[in-house]
């Protein structure tokens, strides 16, 4: 395997006049079954800094964290703690070296008290049992050190998630953590709660802890982090000082895209969208606490509306709320100009909405049923189980769509799980097309499928819109969104920040919109997205 990386990192990325790093990873490589997940990656953590670990999904962030916490053993490279080379055989080894982790979901017991959650497993003893008073005293001391005013005797579950998250941090630092890893700690917090978390993070940083901060929220990274390391496809892209990096630069580093206009799909045959008519679907102020701030959206007949934004920007959430897969706290939905109640997928289907989920394995494909059964599922459901589709009609419908979508193998009796991802996706599309929807919500329909199938699906979407179907198209690939969409809605931090005509929009413009938004608005925005319960 490769040699450990020896050449120094760029001078700009060093902390000026600082001591040695508390933890350093050098030339780290990990492969799973021959597929490299990390290749020659380096990470340096100095005491008293907040270090952001950045990268898109699949960039290798979590693999790196797991190498650091002893879950995975590296194939090559070294972990250096305090100048000494170490190897972690288990998470316990890593914890003993002073590396603690707080995961995205609160991993505590809501039914126990705050003090127990912080100290259980290493609690003070009293007469052979638990020394409850000593335990609470110690918990209180740690909480005070973090500037938290929480009663250690109270039950954890009665506190809001943010406080529970802070208690998880308190548990992590009680063992004198020198490195604290926060993996997406803010994903379920609102703005006030994030501010509170950051106070604690700053307190810890000032006390000399090195903090690794992983988040999809760029604003938060720029607010809290001192330095950042960017990964892409398992490789180190760069290590920067946050103060010397712009958001646009960071997004470019993460995505690794050249900012250029890409070919558009040939859509000459499509008639222009008539925006004066009543939209197929119109939503006003649709929102849900913790998922999406109040958002307006119109989709017209024959129009493809693309939702662009980074992961966690609220793209999927908007589609799920529209379809009733999650219940909205606020907002109204109008279908063909009439108010409609869309609280459940069932109601959405009755209004001729269709939604292909991004998680096709968990929420779409039924592997043990045949292609034909998978395809006819939604149609049968909308007819009701008392009116089975006549066998002859089944056969013709399935055959027609197998051919139209070029599903391979074109065998209606093949088991779904034996199909490739691209072909599964086509069958799922057929499932919804059979119900003849007026609005089709596609969440990442081309993710994880090969290039040929991808182009076919894109072509199909364009054709459907050409025939008058309204489509909402979600994809992490901006090029794809731009290529297909008549209109692009740009999302960031769980809200819509811009809406642009698709025509000549470039990837660069969208990225600039995403990056620029941060500097303007983010300080003025508070908890206005919070809806009454």
């Amino acid at each position, binding site marked *: 395997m490769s040699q450990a990386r020896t050449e120094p990192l760029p001078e700009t990325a060093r902390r000026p006049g600082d001591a040695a790093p508390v933890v350093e990873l050098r030339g780290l490589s990990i492969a799973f079954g021959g597929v490299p997940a990390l290749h020659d990656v380096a990470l340096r953590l100095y005491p008293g800094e907040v270090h952001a670990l950045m990268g898109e999904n699949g960039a290798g962030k979590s693999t790196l964290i797991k190498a650091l916490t002893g879950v995975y053993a590296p194939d090559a490279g070294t972990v250096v703690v305090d100048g000494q080379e170490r190897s972690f055989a288990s998470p316990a080894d890593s914890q003993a070296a002073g590396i603690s982790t707080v995961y995205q979901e609160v*991993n*505590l017991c809501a039914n*126990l008290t705050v003090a127990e959650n912080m100290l*259980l497993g290493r609690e003070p003893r009293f007469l052979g049992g638990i020394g409850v008073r000593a335990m609470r005293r110690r918990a209180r001391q740690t909480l005070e050190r973090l500037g938290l*005013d*929480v009663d250690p005797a109270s*039950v954890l*579950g*009665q506190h809001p998630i943010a406080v529970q998250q802070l208690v998880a941090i308190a548990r992590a630092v009680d063992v004198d953590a020198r490195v604290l890893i926060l993996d997406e700690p803010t994903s379920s917090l609102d703005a006030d709660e994030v501010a509170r978390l950051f106070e604690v993070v700053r307190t810890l940083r000032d006390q000399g802890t090195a903090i690794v901060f992983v988040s999809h929220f760029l604003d938060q990274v720029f607010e809290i982090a001192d330095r950042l390391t960017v990964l892409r496809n398992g490789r180190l892209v760069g290590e920067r000082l946050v103060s010397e990096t712009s958001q646009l630069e960071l997004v470019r580093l993460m995505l690794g895209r050249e900012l250029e206009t890409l070919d558009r799909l040939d859509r000459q045959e499509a008639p222009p969208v008539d925006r004066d008519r009543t939209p197929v679907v119109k939503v006003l102020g649709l929102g849900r606490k913790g998922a999406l701030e109040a958002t307006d959206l119109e989709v017209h007949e024959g129009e493809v509306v693309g939702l662009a934004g980074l992961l966690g920007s609220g793209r999927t959430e908007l589609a799920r709320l529209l379809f009733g897969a999650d219940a909205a706290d606020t907002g109204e939905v109008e279908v063909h100009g009439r108010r409609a109640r869309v609280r459940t997928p069932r109601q959405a289907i009755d209004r001729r909405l269709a939604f292909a989920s991004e998680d096709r394995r968990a929420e779409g494909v039924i592997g043990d049923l045949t292609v034909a059964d998978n395809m006819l599922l939604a149609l049968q459901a909308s007819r009701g189980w008392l009116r089975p589709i006549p066998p002859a009609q089944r056969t013709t419908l399935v055959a027609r769509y197998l051919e139209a979508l070029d599903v391979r193998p074109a065998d209606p009796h093949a088991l779904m799980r034996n199909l490739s991802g691209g072909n599964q996706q086509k069958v799922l599309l057929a499932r919804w097309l059979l119900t003849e929807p007026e609005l089709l919500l596609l969440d990442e329909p081309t993710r994880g499928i090969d290039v040929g199938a991808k182009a076919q699906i894109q072509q199909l979407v364009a054709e459907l819109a050409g025939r008058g179907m309204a489509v909402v198209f979600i994809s992490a690939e901006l090029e794809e969104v731009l290529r297909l969409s008549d209109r692009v809605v740009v999302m960031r931090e769980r809200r819509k920040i811009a809406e642009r005509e698709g025509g000549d929009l470039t990837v660069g413009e969208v990225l600039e919109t995403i990056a620029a938004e941060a500097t303007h608005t983010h300080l003025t925005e508070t908890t206005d997205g919070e809806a009454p319960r």
Partner: protein
Amino acid sequence: MSAATDTPVGSSVVPSTWDRVRSWSPGQRYLPVIATVVVFLSLFSAGGIRYEGFADPQVFLSLFLDNAFLIVLAVGMTFVILTGGIDLSVGSVVALSTVIAARTLEAGWAAPAAIAAVLLVGTVIGLLHGVLIQYLGIQPFIATLAGMFLARGLCFLLAERSIPIDDETFSTIAFATITLPGGYYTTWTAVVALATVVVAAYVLARRRFGRTVYAVGGSEASALLMGLRVARTKVAVYAVSGFCAALGGLLFSLYMLSGNSLHAVGMELDAIAAVVIGGTLLTGGRGLVVGSLVGVLVLGTIQTFISFDGTLSSWWTKITIGVLLLAFVMVQRLATRRQP
């Protein structure tokens, strides 16, 4: 969720004892038990108003001595249910215990040896359940259902008919009474039952094992990440339940003074009912052993009610328990739904 949003204020100064007494209000976790106590008191006063002699302290004391075995069973069941499990075998283990006690005594064993044998068998059965559930990943319901049939079947292998217990030690303990001030009395079986409750309450509240039981019931994955001994705890709760079933079986032998394969049919369900009425969440993580004790007292009161009345069919016991159970489970459901 009013309590959720504001955290307690000004806690940098440790409050004095008087402050704590003055500001004490029952924590949320005590509410189910308090509800059960209220149900018990209302049932008992209703009986006192309706029937002469019902409100006598001796009637109250009799609740303990008539239900001593059930109290012990409910204690063991509380451990299991707190982890989110269930133990259906305890009724059969009670029967098996009575049969083993009767058989060994009949064979001339000394009472302490017979007692030790019974407790050992019960604990081993519980241990086996725990191992099946933890290491082979079998559903608690299925593992203990198998144990229930096996233990019941084993009874018939050991004795096809009822065997009387006429061992001197057993009879002495069974008939001995402890006189209390005021001319009231209780028995040693009640003392054993109450001692079990006290020990269990201490272990659950103050020992790492006990807190781990709650942690496992709250979130097993979290408990693992917290570095607690989850596997050992999950096996141990079934051993505790098996031990308690055997101890309950001994108390039942003293109560009936016979070993019979047909004893205690369906008693596991009474124990589960008592635990649930006592406010323990069937999904685990919440509940107190004291609640299970009060739960048993509620069941006992209903039976006393019916025996005082004389005209009511004993099936009214089942109907009342059914209604109460339903009410408690529904209240629990509503209460937990509001949790964040």
